[in-house]
Every structure is written in C-alpha cells, then in structure tokens.
C-alpha cells in the first residue's frame, strides 16, 4: 500500500498542522512540544479533566476525540510510539480545571510508564490524577488475565462515557468509576487483511499472504489467534461474534452498543455486510442494540481489516453514551 507523504520524520507534525488548520474551532496545540492537542473551547472551570495519549496513526484515535463531551487534551507520539511523559504532563496541566484529571489510555508498556511518570510530574503541582487503562482486546490474553489485554477500539466508548460524565459535573472519583465500568463492559476483537507501513520504517510492518487473513491481530500487527485463508464475510463476522460472546455472554433483555470498525482501508460497504450478522447474533442472544457505530473509529492508517467492540450497557452507561458530544470526527 502506497502512502502520500513528504519526509517521513515530518509525518506526525505535518498531520497535526493540517488537522488544526482544517478544524481550528475544535483543536489547538498546547505547550511547546507541538504534540499536545487540546480543545479549542476548553471545558468549564471545575470540570474533571480527561486526557489520553498514545501513538499516531490511529485517527480518529487519539487526537480526534478531543472535544466537548469527550477528551480535554491528548498527547500524541510518533506513529505507533508513546508520547513522552513531559507531553502527557502538559496535557494533564491543560485538562486540569481544579477538579483533577482522569488518564484514560490503552494498555501498552510505553504509555503506561509515561503516564505514571507524568502523574508524578504534575503531583508537585497539586493536580490529582486517576487512571483507567483500557484492555478490551479479547484476542490478546485469556479472560483470567484480562489485565494483560491490549487496548483497542473500546477506548472510543470509554472516551465517550467518561467525557459525558465529566461534562455533567461529576467529581473525579465518580468519573473514574464510570470510566472503569465502561472499560470493564467492553470487549473487542480484530481481524486484519493487510499490513500497514510506519512512515519512518518505509515498508509494511508485517506480512499477510494475498489470500489469507489474521483473526485477533492487534492494531500494530501484534500476533493474533490464527492465520487462515480469507473466509466469507458471514463466517468472519460469526467467528468474531462467537469470541466476543464467549468472553462476555449476553442474556435476554441486555442492552448493548456495538462498534463495527474499519482498520482503515476496508470500506463501509463491507462493514455493512458484516453488520447484518452482528445484529442477527446480538438479537439471537436476546439483546437490544443501542446506537450502533459503523465506520472508522479507531484505525491503523491504511491497514485493511475490521474490529468489533461490544459495550454492555446499564442505564447509567446508556445515558452517558447518548449524551451529546462533538469533535471533527464524531458528533452525538
């Protein structure tokens, strides 16, 4: 897959420059690192701050979800690389409105260490921080070792729900609690059909044969559950639903939201073909689908593939999911 870029080392900075030029009413840069994106219209004084951070190359994740009813600030690293603790600290400083800051991010080594460290840096400045780590990818570890799982598209739901909770005026403990509840109620699985290329590397990060796919692969190409011949859409959707429902069984009367997400190159036409099966399986389990999300919510640049995320709702989560939010990529 070919890329449109200039000097690969400028990829992230030029991307951010264009993002902010195109959407100045949503985003602006904060601090002097050039890698901290914050709300152009900051939340009100006394609102709990929400920050995230992670590598570039996943738009709308992470930066895109800065906005009203969503995140206050985001520290963004090179493609697939953690931002620095200093950048995260800058994001936390911006996000703090006197009510403390929730750090909400995916379960990756560099991000964890840096967010921990960023928390220590801002501790001296009397900013209280809490943490919720997203670990929704069922393919990356068995249920018994949930804390080892990677964070993937489920973080979009967590951003949304925590964002709505913060916007509604809840305190840090309450926002953290409901964000953790959302994180715990999320299950994701991905299937990749093609690799993607990290600009500074210049060649695909991994390889999938022309007639094969990899079930359960991570969003940077981390190994999955199996590699096999490409299957029909209904079979792929069926197996992905099997694995999600085995991990988080649903019962009659349950209410769930579901995200059918393209990893990048896979077009919406294919997502809708898959959605038929997703819907049928959820309804067969007796569940009611609330606000299904079909589109590109968490990607890996031009990688072809899909992920499904289930979010099991209770009345509190459902209310927060449906609350208004607005960024350049998503509006509820």
């Amino acid at each position, binding site marked *: 897959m070919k890329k449109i870029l200039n000097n690969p080392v400028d990829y992230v900075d030029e991307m951010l420059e264009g993002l902010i030029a195109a959407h100045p009413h949503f985003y602006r840069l904060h601090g002097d690192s050039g890698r901290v994106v914050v709300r152009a219209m900051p939340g009100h004084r006394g609102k709990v701050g929400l920050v995230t951070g992670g590598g570039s190359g996943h738009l709308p994740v992470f930066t895109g979800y800065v906005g009203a009813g969503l995140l206050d600030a985001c520290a963004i690293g090179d493609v697939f690389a953690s931002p620095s603790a*200093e950048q995260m600290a800058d994001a936390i400083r911006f996000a703090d409105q006197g009510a403390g800051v929730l750090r909400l991010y995916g379960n990756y080594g560099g991000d964890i260490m*840096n967010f921990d460290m960023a928390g220590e840096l801002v501790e001296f400045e009397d900013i209280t921080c809490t943490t919720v780590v997203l670990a929704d990818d069922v393919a990356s570890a068995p249920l018994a070792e949930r804390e080892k799982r990677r964070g993937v598209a489920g973080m979009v739901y967590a951003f949304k729900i925590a964002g709505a909770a913060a916007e509604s005026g809840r305190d840090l403990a309450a926002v953290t609690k409901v964000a953790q509840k959302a994180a715990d109620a999320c299950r994701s699985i991905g299937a990749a059909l093609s690799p993607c290329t990290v600009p500074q590397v210049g060649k695909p990060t991994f390889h999938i044969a022309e007639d094969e796919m990899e079930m359960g692969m991570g969003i940077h190409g981390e190994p999955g559950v199996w590699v096999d011949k490409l299957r029909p859409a209904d079979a792929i959707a069926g197996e992905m639903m099997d694995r999600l429902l085995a991990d988080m069984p649903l019962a009659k009367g349950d209410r769930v939201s579901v995200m059918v997400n393209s990893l990048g190159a896979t077009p919406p036409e294919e997502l809708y073909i898959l959605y038929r099966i997703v819907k049928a399986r959820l309804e067969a389990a007796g569940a009611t689908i609330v606000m299904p999300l079909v589109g590109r919510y968490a990607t890996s640049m031009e990688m072809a593939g899909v992920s499904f995320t289930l979010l099991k709702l209770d009345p509190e989560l459902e209310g927060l999911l449906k609350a208004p939010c607005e960024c350049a990529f998503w509006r509820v």
Partner: protein
Amino acid sequence: MSIDRAAVVAGITRLAAAMERDFDLLNTADGALGDGDLGVTMTRGMRMVAEGAEALPDDLGKALLACAQAFTKSSGSSYGTLMATGLMAMAKALKGRESCEAAEFSGLVALARDAMQARGKAELGGKTVLDSLNAVALATAGVSDPAAVATAAVQGARAAMEAFRDKPATVGRARIFAEKSRGLDDPGMLAMTEVVVALAG
C-alpha cells in the same frame, strides 16, 4: 576524589559521544526482535542531556533531575522512560548535595534499579536492563575507591550480559518471541553496558 557537577558534566560528554557511536549497534540489536529504535532513543536522549550540560546547577539532585527531564522530552519509548526514571530516583537521593563519594555509587544504582522496576513492573531475572543494574549494584557494593568502583561496574555489567544471553526474554516487545531471543543479547542490557563503560571513562 568525590563526584561533583564537573564530574557529571564530564561523564555526560563521554556518554553522549558513546551513544553517537553506538547508534547502529543498538538499533540493530533492538531490531532483531523489537522495533529497532533503541539507538534512536539513546542518541536523541543523550543529545538533549548534553545540550543542557552547560546550564546544570551545582546541586547534584537538581542536575540529575534536569538530565531525567531531557530524556523524557526526547522520547516516549520504554527505555527512554526507564532511563529517566532511574535518573529521577538518584536525583531525589542527592537533592541538596553538591558532591557524593564513589562509595555511594552502588546504593545509587540500586535506587535506580528499584525505581525502574517499580515503573516497568517487571521482575528481576527477566533479561532486561534491570538485571544489568542489579549486577552493577552488587559488583560495586562495599567498594569505595573510585577506580575500583569503575572497574567493578564494567565487570558487573558485562558478566550480566554473559549470564543472561541464553535465557528467554520475558518483558517488552521481544517477549512475544521468547524462544528466538535465546542466544541474543537483550538490547537494553547491551545499552546499559555501553553506558557503564562510557561513564567509567
């Protein structure tokens, strides 16, 4: 001969030069099973530290804190973050002091090791930079002559690499390829060995 600001600045100069030299070596070592960016991390990090060396204060704690911040600014990679963590631990211990003795070296390295272990949540014995630091701390324990400390530190770091070479990786990206990692040096241990050699002068 005690360690003061001048000694720190001299050490930084040697270390920065060593990391420019080892750019390819470390990238290649990391590239075998990881993402091949360890040379980038160390070279960029030490460039940032060296840029700030002239302006370092006499307070050794504040000086090392500035070094730690230079590392955090330059990279969010695991190793850069661990380096910053270790430097911050030593900075805290030396806060308010303008010199320290060679005899304190072992204890300072142990502090860094423990802080980095807490940060990365990895066990000792996992074939990581922690095992290098642990070996250095043990090898220099009870030694107070500056030259003897330097020699012991280098020997300790090298011995740890030898000892762990044939073990499987258990931490970081290489963990996925644990079996393939046998026989290969852990890139983080290799980097720390070069750091210790450069500091020993």
